């Protein structure tokens, strides 16, 4: 039985629906975008490495409520500095720009879910090809 070498941290219900069977998820339905980034940072502190960039896509993190980030399936004994720098930069990017809130319609929320799903799907061929992460 093959076990995946990666997992996806996400708050995106469309990711859960589309990838839940084939991919191991850490799904947090009620998390905000910021919450997800902080959870990823927590994982990094526990020795997990980040496999996809937390600022994937050009939709701004303060606009889309959804974020999926791929991490290693297992934590290691040491903290990966590259992962730490990337997640800190991502949280900073979200914090530094105090955008005014937008209330999105249901249709637009679905579109954001779709974009986020597409972004994480774009990483799957590489993740699968790589084998050992």
């Amino acid at each position, binding site marked *: 039985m093959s076990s995946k070498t990666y997992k996806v941290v996400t708050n995106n219900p469309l990711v859960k629906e589309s990838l839940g069977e084939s991919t191991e998820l850490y799904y947090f339905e009620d998390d905000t975008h910021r919450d997800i980034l902080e959870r990823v940072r927590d994982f990094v502190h526990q020795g997990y490495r980040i496999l996809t960039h937390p600022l994937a896509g050009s939709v701004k993190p303060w*606009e889309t409520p959804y974020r999926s980030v791929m991490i290693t399936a297992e934590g290691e004994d040491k903290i990966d500095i590259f992962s730490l720098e990337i997640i800190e930069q991502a949280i900073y990017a979200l914090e530094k720009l105090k955008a005014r809130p937008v209330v999105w319609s249901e249709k637009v929320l679905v579109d954001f879910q779709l974009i986020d799903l597409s972004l994480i799907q774009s990483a799957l*061929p590489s993740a699968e090809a790589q084998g050992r992460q």
Partner: protein
Amino acid sequence: MKLELGYIDIKGIRFDDYNAIEDGVLVINPEELVKPVLEDELIKSAHFEIAEPGESIRITPVKDVIEPRVKVEGPGAIFPGMIAKVDTVGSGRTHVMRGMAVVTAGPIVGFQEGIIDMTGPGADYTPFSQLHNLVLAMEMEDSGASAHEYEKAARMAGLATAARVGELARELVPDEIEVFETPTIAQSYSDELKDLPRVAYVMMLQSQGLLHDTYCYGVDAKRTLTTMISATEVMDGAIVSGNCVSACDKNTTYHHLNNPVIQDLFKQHGKTLNYVGTIITNENVYLADKLRSSDWTAKLADFLSLDAAIVSQEGFGNPDTDLILNCKKLEAKGIKTVIITDEYAGQDGKSQSLADADVAADAVVTGGNANETIVLPPMDHVIGTLNYVDKIAGGHDGSLRPDGSIEAELQVITGSTNEMGFNRLSAR
């Protein structure tokens, strides 16, 4: 490779019941030109409108901007791998309808982006306000097809329309001809060139998924290793945009065709520098891909024995990581590197501009701060729809004011902070 570009200067566009170019005026039969577009079942409705510089017209949401061209001599045809077959382009002669563009507009998803104002303060921030624009406004069928399919339909409609319009220039005598020649490695060591600094252009292509893709000869840039291309191939449409998120810093197909770094490197080639080649690389979401691609950028640069490199990027956020990786690794090879980027430095301009940084990135050209706010006055006519302006990247609730004016960040304007350095606004 040697390519001649023959420019046919377009001074205006008008509609009539035939198609031609007469004394620099493009005459279009809009009913005839729209027919092949409507053959795609996914497109519910489509029509053409004209937007001239100085007119009180707002085009939104903008998907792509494409310059009509046609290959008149040499192998292949415009937009290889997309509209034309995959034969290698970049040599012979190509006619360019200079001064105009085909602009595709219309919703693909519910959040939209891209405004082009043809007059007013917004016009200063987009190069497309200076062009005679033939706008193809489309609406997609609500048929349950995927957003991927809608995006592809809109993209192909735009490219095919630009190619059809370009055909009208095939038999004309150009107003001006410019010759571009890219050297082989052996030629780059000729007596005329060997004492000049060896410089290459590293072009980063957005490659992340739906609405975030770029194609090279029809190949999705996500699936390429870093590679090389002749600058003249780019002039024949080898690279096209499937990217329509982040209006300010996505590279339209027009930007690719008229790449300003390529243009300026050619101007200096043989004089102050030796433009030895063009490297294309991608901006994938998967971090190991970023590491691999930037390793290959540095490897190819080393193989070319470069003294210096210019790196341009595309998009917001994670591409900054690719940009800094490319820069660091080039500098580590002793290759002096200049990067071109835009900034998200906050509305007061005081925050760190990029999502990544390194001491090696000490030579930076900025396309501007995308968070700068602007008020765009109402226009007399909107091509497309304003329904989406509150949903436009850089907008917010209340962005669209009752009088039709828009308060938003520069992000909303197509091409406003372009990261190839296309624009000419500067600051002291």
